[in-house]
């Protein structure tokens, strides 16, 4: 073979091997946020509070992990429930959050999360009633929390009796609790939020699984300057 021929062969083979490895690594480690980012800044008049509506469901019923517990969010433009837990929010803006909790609950492992922390007035409303501490040892307990750890925000989501809604998005007819609260977004940056109730059924002490995978029980708040 001539030098040119060898050059072409080796380069060709090299590119094939490198291409395979790069393709494999890159396709398995997709950059970006799992589930995509829902934009709440586009539809938002400057300075006006953001209306953010989410729901929790005991088992999502579709996708790669149909048995996993998950959060869903209401798309601000179409009004449809979508499975995405990362939200783009404007900085230094009030967020009015509504959470429809369709999942059952139990006593908290760490009762610290029975408190409402970091929201405006350190309170939230549960089906219209304001509260600041919930005793999860009574009643249906707490199913999840919505918490932004680096901002010290945490709200307990009180559980419903039983687990009637088996697939997302849950219909309003299913038993659920509605909780509302408000908080103010900080300066621009990326802030993670998560649930502090180990709720991944079938995993060691409920951690792992949905608790350790983005786009189920946790996500990111991408706070941007509007």
């Amino acid at each position: 073979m001539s030098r040119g021929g060898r050059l072409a062969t080796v380069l060709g083979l090299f590119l094939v091997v490198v291409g395979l490895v790069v393709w494999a690594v890159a396709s398995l480690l997709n950059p970006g946020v799992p589930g995509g980012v829902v934009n709440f800044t586009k539809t938002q008049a400057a300075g006006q509070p953001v209306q953010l509506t989410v729901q929790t469901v005991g088992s999502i019923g579709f996708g790669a992990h149909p048995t996993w517990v998950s959060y869903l969010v209401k798309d601000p433009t179409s009004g449809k429930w979508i499975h995405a837990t990362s939200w783009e929010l404007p900085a230094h803006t009030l967020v009015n959050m509504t959470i429809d909790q369709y999942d059952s609950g139990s006593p908290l492992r760490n009762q610290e999360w029975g408190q409402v922390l970091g929201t405006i007035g350190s309170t939230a409303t549960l089906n219209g009633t304001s509260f600041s501490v919930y005793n999860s040892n009574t009643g249906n307990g707490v199913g999840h929390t919505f918490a932004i750890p680096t901002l010290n925000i945490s709200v307990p989501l009180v559980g419903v009796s039983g687990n009637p809604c088996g697939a997302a998005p849950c219909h309003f007819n299913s038993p659920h609790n509605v909780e509302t609260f408000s908080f103010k977004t900080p300066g621009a940056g990326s802030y993670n939020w998560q649930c502090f109730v180990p709720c991944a059924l079938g995993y060691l002490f409920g951690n792992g699984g949905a608790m350790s995978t983005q786009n189920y029980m946790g996500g990111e708040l991408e706070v941007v300057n509007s």
Partner: protein
Amino acid sequence: MSPESAIGSEENHFRRIVIIWVVLSVVLDLLFWFLVGPHVPPGRMTSTAKDNQFDFNVLMVIGLPVVIGVWEWLGYAAVKWNVKRKDMPESVGGPGAAGNKRTEVSWIVITTFVVLCLAVFGTIALYAGNGSGSGEGPNPILQPAGAVKAETAALAGTGSWSPNSNEVLPVQVIAQQWKFTYRYPTFGGFESPDLIVPDNTEIAFNVTSLDVIHSFWAYQLEVKADANPMQNNVAFTKTEQLGNFEVRCSELCGIWHGAMFNPGKVVSESAFMTWATTTESTNATNTANLAPFAWTYVPDANGAAGGYYPDGNVTPYSTVEIYGSKQPS
């Protein structure tokens, strides 16, 4: 010029290297000790930070000459003892080239001596620093005076702390995926996401975890202790300056490990007393819901969570009474 005079005699080389080495070492050691040393992170906020900074500087003063010596030797050889490319070198063998008993023995003796000194120094520093701020497990052998009394009282729920009393303040650090929370057993056992400690006080950090292994690293306080499930890992430090500090998790604990941090504050003793008593009363409702104060907490596998191990097959877990007995005595 003959090759002999070009490379000089053995004595000349060795003496030259040693002189350069001594001068460089002394200069750099002094520069380090006086210019860099006092600013070595993480600063001097606590007794352990101060002590460990001193230890770091001592090791640096010993380590710098070693590094300089070897690098100088490499550099000297590279510059002085090379031959031009393509020239086949001449014979440089001769007696002593394959070994020199005096050199070998003195090398071994010197390195052994330095190493043993380092080990002794490290051990003394560890003992003098009450464990130097590192996690000592449930039964610490190195602890400040009054630690046993304060810890025992804290578990019994009879602990107290007041400003200027020189008492040890026990603080419990509870790690969970992915946040630290803190309990203050001497103030009714309230729990808070904020870590606030008084100045000029011996603090006993009792670190435990509710799930996986985390590591409590209060950076400026120079405290680091792994948080293990079902284990109380105790570390001591004495605050000596007011200011803010940063707490980070330094053991990989899952996806949000990188986001597991929170700020903390060293405040004056009276300010701390005010904060603690206020929080104790505002948190009273929730404190009543908390699990009784214990050094460790065992997750309830029978809740909505878990289900990895099937229920019913497992003996119900015992909690407090075992861990009470493992406490500092």
